[in-house]
């Protein structure tokens, strides 16, 4: 059996006036947590849908666990949580889950047993057994749990989550992170797409950044960060940057890019700039420094650097 969970080779998807995915090749190792990063409209969802054989590529090939993704039954090993979530509103929770599990090739009797376990695990049985309720009687949070159960009910070896954190409150987001790690421990492969770099940096073994339908870079998170160099400064200022300091942070002889968060700054220095001299200048300018540290750039910084501000629309690559 192949060591690769997913092998995408030279995949192209064209629409009428634009190319959604351009000659994309990706190798996703078995058993890893893999982040597919990129701004909205970069082609993440299109790529995921092509993996799932929902839409067909114009060129190229995709295999899952070494077999073509068009092979009958191969998608039964995949669990998918789409970005746009929804269930049959008028159906009983248990029946929805049973239906989706049956579509993945699980026998009804097995599925029924697993549904009980999962409902228990997500505390959907208690004073009331929510399994017997209609989907539209559930709160939004409960519906998300049910949706997540439907993704994992057939115990897939490959789990694909499209923007899983969007719309989750902090508690559910934490629960999702725990679930992803547990899947990894059980040897499953998890792919998720996100534009929230912090999550990706904390959770992923490997990442791929795509923008405008093209791969910008990919590889292990550590390697990606290392290759980007250690020319970044993490700077915390008590009370923020006043006039002189603020000017210095934009000094083109030192600073190539400044990510200004009011009290916290992530600065990318020019390769030949002297970090010690820069620190002295800051003190001379009267900066109240709480932290000055040479760091590896965050994924967020790498993302901004490689994709460029033009590839990111406002609000699409927040720190959230």
């Amino acid at each position: 059996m192949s060591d690769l969970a997913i092998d995408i080779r030279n995949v192209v998807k064209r629409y009428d006036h634009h190319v959604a995915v351009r000659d994309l090749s990706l190798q996703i190792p078995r058993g890893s947590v893999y982040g597919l990063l990129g701004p909205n409209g970069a082609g993440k969802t299109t790529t995921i849908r092509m993996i799932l054989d929902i839409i067909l590529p114009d060129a190229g090939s995709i295999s899952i666990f070494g077999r073509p993704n068009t092979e009958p039954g191969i998608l039964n090993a995949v669990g998918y949580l789409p970005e746009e979530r929804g269930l049959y509103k008028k159906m009983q929770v248990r029946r929805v889950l049973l239906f989706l599990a049956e579509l993945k090739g699980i026998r009804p009797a097995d599925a029924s047993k697993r549904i009980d376990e999962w409902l228990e695990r997500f505390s959907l049985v208690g004073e009331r057994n929510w399994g017997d309720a209609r989907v539209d009687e559930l709160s939004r949070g409960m519906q998300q749990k049910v949706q997540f159960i439907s993704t994992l009910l057939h115990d897939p070896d490959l789990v694909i989550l499209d923007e899983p954190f969007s719309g989750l409150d902090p508690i559910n987001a934490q629960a999702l992170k725990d679930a992803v790690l547990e899947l990894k421990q059980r040897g499953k492969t998890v792919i998720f797409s996100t534009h929230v770099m912090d999550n990706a940096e904390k959770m992923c073994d490997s990442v791929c950044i795509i923008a405008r339908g093209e791969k910008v870079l990919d590889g292990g998170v550590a390697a990606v960060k290392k290759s980007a160099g250690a020319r970044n400064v993490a700077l915390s200022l008590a009370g923020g940057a006043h006039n002189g300091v603020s000017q210095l942070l934009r000094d083109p002889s030192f600073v190539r890019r400044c990510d200004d968060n009011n009290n916290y700054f992530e600065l990318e220095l020019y390769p030949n700039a002297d970090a010690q001299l820069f620190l002295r200048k800051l003190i001379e300018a009267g900066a109240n420094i709480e932290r000055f540290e040479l760091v590896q750039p965050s994924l967020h910084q790498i993302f901004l650097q490689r994709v460029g501000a033009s590839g990111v629309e406002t609000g699409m690559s927040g720190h959230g």
Partner: protein
Amino acid sequence: MDNKIWIVAKREYLERVRSRTFLAFTLLIPVFIAGVTMFPLYIAAKSGASTAIRHITILDATGTDLGDRVAKALMTDSTIARIPNDSVTPRVVKTTAAGLPASEQAAENEVKLPNHITGYLVLTDSTLDGKSARYSGRNASTIGDMDKLRSLVRQEVMVSRLEREGVRKDIVNDLATSNFRLTSQRLSESGRGGSGQAGIFAGISVGLLLFMSIVFHGQNVLRGVLEEKSTRVAEVVISSIKPESLLAGKVLGVGGVGLTQQAAWFAISAYLMNFLGPIILKAATKGTVVATTATSGTSAANAALGASFGGMALSIVAVSLLFFVIGFVFYASLYAAAGSMVNSEQEAQQAAMPVMLLLMSTWLMVNPVLINPNSKLALVLTWLPWSSPIMVPLRMGLTTVSPVVIAGSALVAVIGCIASIWLSARIYRVGMLMYGKKPSFAEVAKWIRYA
């Protein structure tokens, strides 16, 4: 066959059959049909002569036995409802033209007393001439009573005059009570068919039934597709099953619901008409109905039912079923494609317009085909895949359609079906994941090429 098609069909079927709407429609429609069929019978029974016309006084100023004859006829006529243990009989008062005003006054006073006679009938020389008689009474505006009275008097006048002319009494009686009927039978090249009336009735009912169920359940498919799209459940489902299979399962499941419903409708309607018919009629006449009336009521109900279904040959039933399945698949897959293109009910009605127009154009041709089932137009419509599902069973009820034509037209319709499924599946595949504005037809044409 793909096992997943079956899973989808099962879900569609069970979820729909379990719903309260299905139960309501399944139970209420036959009640409605039975009601519509029974109501005229109820009215007819109610408007038949009531026992009240026996409680009258007959003022006979003819100088003959006409008054007695009418009284006797009133007592023996079996179509007049009868109250058990009712001993009241018409009273005959012999009088003269001169004494008539006084007798009338007396009778009128009697009518005005409570619980006495209903009215009085005046027979004069004019009556003997076959011209007129007079009636005054509380039930003078009851159409059934007056009709019965008029026909009885007329009959007795005729009988007595014939007897006076020397015609034998039994012949007179026979003529007077004969119940003349015209029955018609259809003749065709292949021999005798069912009754002509029943043929037309069967043709129309089959056509109407097919048309109605295709529209009704086609819309259901559309709504189902729209629901999957607007609740966004579609993407999860399509990640497990090919869109074509999802489409096929949906059409099968909803089609199964349609067949179930029609079977239930037929069974319940038949039950209501056969078993409840006499009971309803009994209630209508507020008393014991004379046996013959009850029988005629039941047979009328059976005739109504028989005209729509019983008059049909088994072959028409089989062909209708076959063409229902073909026609339903043809239209339902187009409805599914329409549903996948849009995001709301309002838009859906617009998107379904072309499908509706195709159906309506067929429906509008039913009348011309009824008038002349062998016209050029009828022949053309037999071969077009979108009209044949309605036209073939319709024409079979009206005329002779050769088995070769039926088989050929079914084949063409199946090919049409495959084309419609192919087209719809391509639109569906792209449309299911397209949100936002309603696509133009140019865009839909592009989807067909993408997929």
